[in-house]
């Protein structure tokens, strides 16, 4: 990678991105689904003259705007900050290809924020008709943001024909675009309903409340159904190699898949049980349970989607360590050290420092030393010669891992560093000419 490195100890950079991004997408999808839910609820309530439903719509809108305009907006900026720090090359590449997409999304973002703040500030202060119109504008703008961002996020997993044409629309309407849009629409609806339970749980327990709880429960159940349909379609469209990282027994993401599916199934049960059989029992606890299950399902999906993209950060175009596929041959011939010059800054000169530089520039994006995807246990007890042979074999990559790139001598230097890291190889690495160029 060409840039100075931002290495996050223990959890690794990808989890720094992930922790912020998962929070953001949950809030963003609550805002999309919640926008629709509020305006539809207000419309029904106004027609029926139902004060409880109107109170709910109003409270839900305040809760939503407080959440989305502050934490939602700032975690959105946080995505820019974290991906720019951890994956600057990939971010630059995405921006060069999709800057107009983001510029368009920004327009929707402005409209969404203006409409949201006005909608909340004008309850009972303007005509119902205008208030509803502003509500619809809020929802439309929020949903259109999703429509745009969905194109860029799915592109990263399945760039489709873009690989040959490099054309915006080929990348945007890629093979997983539509299934993902269906899935995300479903997730937005199910999150909005369960977030609604949380707000409704704090309303007075009037006679009209069970009907409201049922109304919200059916939103969420519709969302669950749509999510399942979208998810199935998405799985069909995902390339087999990527699917294999998640689905067969023993695969890397098996646990996450299990947790996600379990959470979705449990959510459907909770929604049906409390929403339709025991709506009077919906207080804070069932609402929080439903929200936790919904967030767990959604978080697991995002984790799997990111996970099966490996070894790429941009499918078939750039590896997760920032090296483009079209650079590999040249770097194997000319060496990778020039590209990762910044990875050597601050390293004390020593027999293994070139190897360490290569490790930092090529591997540490995913592998921490002792924390997440720790490297030390993997190399413990191995000598430099054996490791060099393993690394040479990894020039072809392995499922989920980019190929090792560099000259033969560079690979030897990396092996020497790893052997020293593993402990028993220190002697070999420090001996004269211990595998260094």
């Amino acid at each position, binding site marked *: 990678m060409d840039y100075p490195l931002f290495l996050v100890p223990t959890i690794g950079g990808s989890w720094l991105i992930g922790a912020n991004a998962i929070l953001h997408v949950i809030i963003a999808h609550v805002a999309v689904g919640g926008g629709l839910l509020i305006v539809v609820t207000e419309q029904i309530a106004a027609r029926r003259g139902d004060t409880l439903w109107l109170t709910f719509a109003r409270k839900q809108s305040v809760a939503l705007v407080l959440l989305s305009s502050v934490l939602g907006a700032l975690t959105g*900026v946080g995505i820019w900050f974290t991906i*720019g*720090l951890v994956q600057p090359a990939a971010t630059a590449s995405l921006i060069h290809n999709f800057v*107009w997409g*983001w510029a*368009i999304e920004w327009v929707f973002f*402005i409209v969404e924020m*203006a*409409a949201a703040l006005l909608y909340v500030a004008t309850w009972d202060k303007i005509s119902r008709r205008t208030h509803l119109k502003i509500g619809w504008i809020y929802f439309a703008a929020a949903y259109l943001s999703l429509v745009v961002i969905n194109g860029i996020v799915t592109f990263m997993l399945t760039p489709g024909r873009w690989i040959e044409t490099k054309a915006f629309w080929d990348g945007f309407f890629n093979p997983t675009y539509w299934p993902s849009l269906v899935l995300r629409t479903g997730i937005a609806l199910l999150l909005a309903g369960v977030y609604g339970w949380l707000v409704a749980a704090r309303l007075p327990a009037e006679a009209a409340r069970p009907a409201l709880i049922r109304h919200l429960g059916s939103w969420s159940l519709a969302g669950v159904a749509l999510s399942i349909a979208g998810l199935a379609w998405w799985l069909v469209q995902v390339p087999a190699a990527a699917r294999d990282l998640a689905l067969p027994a023993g695969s890397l993401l098996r646990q996450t898949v299990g947790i996600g599916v379990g959470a979705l199934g449990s959510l459907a049960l909770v929604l049906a049980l409390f929403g339709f059989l025991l709506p009077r029992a919906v207080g804070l606890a069932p609402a929080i349970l439903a929200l936790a299950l919904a967030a767990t399902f959604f978080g697991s999906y995002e984790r799997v989607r990111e996970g099966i993209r490996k070894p790429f950060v941009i499918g078939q175009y750039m590896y997760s360590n920032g090296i483009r596929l079209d650079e590999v041959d040249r770097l194997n011939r000319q060496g990778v050290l020039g590209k990762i010059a910044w990875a050597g*800054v601050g390293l004390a000169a020593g027999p293994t420092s070139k190897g360490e530089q290569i490790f930092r520039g090529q591997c540490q994006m995913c592998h921490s030393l002792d924390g997440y995807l720790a490297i030390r246990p993997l190399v413990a007890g191995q000598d430099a010669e054996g490791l060099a042979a393993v690394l040479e074999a990894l020039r072809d990559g392995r499922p989920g891992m980019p190929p090792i790139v560099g000259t033969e001598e560079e690979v030897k230097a990396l092996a020497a560093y790893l052997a020293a890291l593993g402990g028993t190889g220190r002697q070999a690495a420090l001996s004269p000419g211990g595998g260094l160029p």
Partner: protein
Amino acid sequence: MTLPLPALDPTPLPAPAWLFHLLLLVTFLVHVLFMNVSLGGAVIASVHGLLARGSGTPGRRLVRWMAGMLPGSISFTITTGVAPLLFVQLLYGQFFYSATVLVGWIWLTLLVLLVIAYYAVYLQQSEAGGGTAPAWLVVAALAFLAVAGIQTLVNLLQLTPGRWTAVATRAESPLADPTMLPRYLHFVLGAFAVAGVFLGHLGAERAAKGPDAFYPWVARVGIRWALVATALQVADGFWLFFSLPGPLQARLMGGAIGETALFVTGMGLGLVVLILLSRIQEPARERGLLRAAGGLLVLTLVGMVVLRDVIRGLYLAPLIRLRELATRTQVDLLLLFLALFVLGLATVAWMLWTVARERRSP
């Protein structure tokens, strides 16, 4: 040892660089206007809230008033900040990413500070009754002042790749640049001036509607802040100028006609604003003078945004020339963006207009 600049992304720009450059400057200007009201407004109200003794005082009322306005202005500071953040990454990504990585944890702290400031404002707003101290607003104001510092730090580091290795190896503090402090003050004082004039206008406008003594007071306070901040700005401007690298000073002082003209015009406008502000005694009754000062201040800000960009160009001149960046224009997307942009602004304008009309005649 100076390490190579990260390679440019090989994908061509999807429109001519000048267009993105223009969008960068325009969106940055709008962002700065909202930012100035948020930062300056929070500081001004905090100071008067702290000086005030007792709940009925205008200082405490200013705190409540400002706490009511800030969520909207912060929200639009952030919303309008996203666009320049996007365009600066597109045009200056090699510099931007490197600079942020070098001070990565500090850069991330900016977000934490903004979340704190934002919720602090809401907490201030929710303080019931009139006897409340401005504690939460002070928290927000301090957070904003720190955010301004981080922005100055990162922006300056972008311009000085020669320092990167020293900063990366901790041989040099990222703050060590001689222009850091005057540059920071330049932004903060500017924010006080703009927020002061904004309060002057708003106070004068409300004062015209009724006999409430609070609003003429707000207007006077605002103008006083703007006047003092602009006077200090003149001094700080000289400090900033003389701390710039020698060759840059030379270009701004006659070395290059266009750049010199811009520099002199900016300074001249600032001085005229200062003179106008000093002549306002009772802003609520001198609306014409107030409007002239406000209009010229915004014009000065436009000049300063352009000048800042010119100075960035001078710093980076040997390393990047925007007009030489490879381009392959995506005409359909460009038109789609422009159409949606106009439509989006029209939608916002329609909403504001309709709400204002219905509120006037319910």
